[in-house]
């Protein structure tokens, strides 16, 4: 309550120190924003590098994936083109694919040669056989290169089935050549079978569809194109007459051939291969691992020079070619030993050891460890001391490149580790205190969150295709050190460097 005579004074005096507590949610929001603002401020370099690395990794994966897809689709198109030509000798290419054109030209030359040599009806049979053989060769080569169960082998399998059909058709064609005119009347029957044939071609992909369209067109026009792609009337040319006998094949023969194709298609193994082959699959493998490392922090502050750390981690990750992405969870313990520290005093002949102890104090919301130094003791008699251990749960995120030579490999790994303080404890062993008394009282406060940057160079040996062991050296650097010293006019060791070794077991699935 205030009692003022002047209205301005009344308000000024009352409002000058007037306070309204902000809602708790607002306070939490502000402090959280502040926390992240600090993180961004302290680690903006690391964040930029990490984001850039992740983007580059994703971009590289996307790029390699795209080029792999393009290569495999080109292979499939090539094979389909071969199939189309091999099984339809009377058709012409309608695809722009270079592979197809080459294949087509080779076949065309072969066929033309045969036609010129024999000038007989059977020349088309010979060309058919020649084309089939070539197609088989191409496909068997593809199979050898691809190593078996993949989309190429699937297509090859189709080629074989179509070849069978084609051969059967050819046999029938020869057998029935004498009754060509009669059978031409059965065009309608063949028309009925067209869809089934189309199914077989359609199975081969786009090239098959294109060929099908020509096939349909020629059926309607009553003739087949010759190898140059020109359509001729069946009554005008002997060769064409013979070719058109394909149209007039008996229904039973076609059914038999198509049944053979269907039986293969319905085969469960082939169906399985089909689905696997058509699936767009990234060439990424996954692995799990177990790692351990030990290192000593080379702290800039003399007081904390001896600071060993050990860590163990469970890894999971993905591998694309030679690149590996590691993540997981780990546990990291750091010990700051303060005993047996050698201090050189003004008296150079006397080496002394500080006798220290920690005092846990609680100030408002924070817990501090007050390091009080009581005195010095001769180093020869001071074997006991005190240490503090800090335990962190950490999440690594690392990108690695593996260079392999036979069963050996070199692995260069770099990344960041996000460390969250889980607990801190103090071990005190009484020591005989004697000598000088000191009043130095550095304040020690464990940090709740730390980010480290690490680089590993490992040598690995692959015992099997799945299991490998790696060992090497590790360098870590931290931003924001565990300790903050005040009253000593010593800069806190913000960027300590840890050097040590690591061991890693990896199992690839």
């Amino acid at each position: 309550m205030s009692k003022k005579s002047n209205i301005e004074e009344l308000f000024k005096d009352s409002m000058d120190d007037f306070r309204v507590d902000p809602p708790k949610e607002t306070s939490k929001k502000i402090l959280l924003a502040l926390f992240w603002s600090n993180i961004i401020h302290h680690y903006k370099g690391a964040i930029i590098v990490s984001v850039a690395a992740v983007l580059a990794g994703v971009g590289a994966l996307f790029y390699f994936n795209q080029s792999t897809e393009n290569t495999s689709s080109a292979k499939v198109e090539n094979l389909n083109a071969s199939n189309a030509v091999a099984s339809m000798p009377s058709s012409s290419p309608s695809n722009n694919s270079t592979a197809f054109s080459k294949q087509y030209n080779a076949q065309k030359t072969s066929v033309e040669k045969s036609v010129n040599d024999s000038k007989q009806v059977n020349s088309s049979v010979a060309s058919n056989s020649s084309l089939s053989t070539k197609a088989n060769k191409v496909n068997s080569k593809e199979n050898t290169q691809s190593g078996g169960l993949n989309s190429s082998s699937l297509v090859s399998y189709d080629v074989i089935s179509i070849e069978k059909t084609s051969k059967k058709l050819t046999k029938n064609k020869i057998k029935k050549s004498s009754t060509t005119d009669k059978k031409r009347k059965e065009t309608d029957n063949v028309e009925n079978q067209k869809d089934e044939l189309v199914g077989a071609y359609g199975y081969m992909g786009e090239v098959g569809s294109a060929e099908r369209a020509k096939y349909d067109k020629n059926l309607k026009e009553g003739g087949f194109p010759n190898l140059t792609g020109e359509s001729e009337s069946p009554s005008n040319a002997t060769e064409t007459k013979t070719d058109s006998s394909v149209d007039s094949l008996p229904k039973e023969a076609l059914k038999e051939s198509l049944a053979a194709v269907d039986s293969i298609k319905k085969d469960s193994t082939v169906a399985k291969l089909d689905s696997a082959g058509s699936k767009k699959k990234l060439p990424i493998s996954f692995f799990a691992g177990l790692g351990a490392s030990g290192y000593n922090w080379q702290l800039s502050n003399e007081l904390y020079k001896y600071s060993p750390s050990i860590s163990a981690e469970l890894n999971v990750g993905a591998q694309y070619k030679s690149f590996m992405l590691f993540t997981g969870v780990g546990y990291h313990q750091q010990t700051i030993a303060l005993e047996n520290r050698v201090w050189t005093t003004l008296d150079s002949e006397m080496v002394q050891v500080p006798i220290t102890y920690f005092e846990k104090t609680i100030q408002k919301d924070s817990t501090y460890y007050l390091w009080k130094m009581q005195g010095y003791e001769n180093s020869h008699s001071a074997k006991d001391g005190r240490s503090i251990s800090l335990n962190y749960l950490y999440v690594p995120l690392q990108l690695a490149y593996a260079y392999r030579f036979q069963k050996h490999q070199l692995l260069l790994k770099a990344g960041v580790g996000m460390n969250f303080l889980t607990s801190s404890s103090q071990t005190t062993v009484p020591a005989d205190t004697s000598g000088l008394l000191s009043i130095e009282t550095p304040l020690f406060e464990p940090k709740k969150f730390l980010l480290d940057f690490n680089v590993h160079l490992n040598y690995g040996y692959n015992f099997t295709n799945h299991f490998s062991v790696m060992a090497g050296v590790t360098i870590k650097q931290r931003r924001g050190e565990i300790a903050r010293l005040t009253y000593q006019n010593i800069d806190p060791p913000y960027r300590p460097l840890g050097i040590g070794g690591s061991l890693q077991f990896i199992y690839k699935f």
Partner: protein
Amino acid sequence: MSADLQDIIKGCVKRDYKYQKLLYTKYASLLYAICLRYLKNTDDAKDAVQDCFMKVYDKIAGFNHEGSFDGWIKRLTVNNCLIVLREKKKAVFVDEIYIPIEMERDEEDEGYDIDKQTLFNMIQDLPDGYRTVFNLYVIDGFSHKEIAEKMGINEGTSKSQLARAKKILRDKITLLQNEQEKQHRRVV
């Protein structure tokens, strides 16, 4: 400046979260009250106070320790509130010409006996333009010239806004006191 505050400021300069938190604890209620006094709307005030603290932590390294830190942080908050008002175009100034008001008789005011919260509520109830000028002139100590520059108005408008604000407040206080007297008589 106390040693504690100096440590807090040094810690904040180093972006030490612990000290930033201490600074927040120390000044949050003060800054929130200022924001509420200017902006009235609690949501706007919450946003403004957050914005203020972020600016304080960013600019604290520029604090030269010559003046009072309280004054520095208050001025920063007020400026931030004015920016918010300007962005939202909340402060509408009706008068462009200074009209002397008859009720300019501060020296004749009687003694008042009113609690701070009531006074705070009275300020909050003022129209935006009146409230802004009253806050700037009476409580935060800006001159009419400074107010005119900050708000983009002329000095006359600032003076008339202030006079009207004071009249409204005086009327309210008189009304309140009359009611209090009546209640007192009833009790007696």
